[in-house]
């Protein structure tokens, strides 16, 4: 049997970036916080560039706890949605044309979200990565870590539980 020729790298990248774009840029609150996602293969890093409107304590100044919680929750929800979408996209259950035409897969819903504030958020860009610890048919558990200058010095972390949307293929 002849081996199937791998797709050209540009086609693969275009498809994956379009899929990510569809789940990130359609959400007003993600735009409000100015969050972008940096993709390397299936790994996502959320980036929240510093802006004055994210400040919670003008004296220090420090990022608002709510902005940090929002950043972590966005990272968790998008990270979880992305991990599901990745599987469906790679296996061909969902075609990229479906996403382009606006039929977005339903998002996971947050059941609970627990944030630890480890140190104050400085007026700098923030980064976060989500790790899906368990993703079942109905429920998922996701851990998120956020840092600023140094990857090993987290300024916040969170764990959340999510209700999964019904799958497209039964």
């Amino acid at each position, binding site marked *: 049997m002849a081996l199937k020729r791998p797709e050209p790298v540009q086609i693969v990248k275009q498809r994956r970036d379009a899929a990510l774009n569809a789940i990130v840029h*359609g*959400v*007003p*609150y*993600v*735009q*409000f*916080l100015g969050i972008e996602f940096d993709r390397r293969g299936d790994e996502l890093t959320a980036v929240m560039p510093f802006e*004055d*409107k*994210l*400040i*919670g*304590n*003008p004296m220090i100044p*420090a*990022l*608002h*706890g*709510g*902005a940090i*919680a*929002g*950043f972590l*929750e*966005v990272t968790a*929800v998008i990270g979880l949605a992305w991990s599901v979408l990745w599987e469906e996209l790679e296996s061909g259950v969902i075609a990229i044309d479906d996403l382009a035409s606006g039929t*977005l897969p*339903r*998002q996971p*819903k*947050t*059941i*609970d*979200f*627990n*944030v*630890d*504030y480890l140190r*104050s958020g400085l007026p700098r860009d923030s980064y976060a990565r989500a790790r899906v610890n368990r993703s079942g048919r109905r429920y998922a558990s996701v851990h998120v870590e956020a840092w600023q200058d140094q990857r090993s010095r987290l300024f916040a972390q969170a764990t959340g539980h999510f209700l999964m949307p019904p799958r497209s293929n039964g």
Partner: protein
Amino acid sequence: MDTAKIKMAEQFISMVPHCKALGMKLTSIEDGVAEMELAYDKALVGDPETGVIHGGAISALMDTCCGTAAMSHPSSPAGTATIDLRIDYMRAATPGQAVRTRAECYHITRSVAFVRATAFDEDKDRPVATASGAFTVEGK
């Protein structure tokens, strides 16, 4: 609670850039209890298909309200910072309606304030979310 402290709290919140950006309002404050409101805003939507506000915006509201309750407690000398905050989402807030939250600092030590909060939309019988958290007690 004396009027000077109330004024100070109102001013403090109106000066916080993130609260201003979200459009948060302090509606009531007493010793260890605070109430705040977040008007519905399309810019805060988390699910474009339904128009439901993102959980993160509700988190910001509850975090601010809990922090304000901690600071308004008679035993709290000055500022505060969140140590941890847990939010449970009972249901989606109805699109188009404001979200109101009430936070109560139910215990405070020399270093930690314990706070809980509940959020509602116009339906007062079914909470949208509840929160509980620990906050630092900062010296003067």
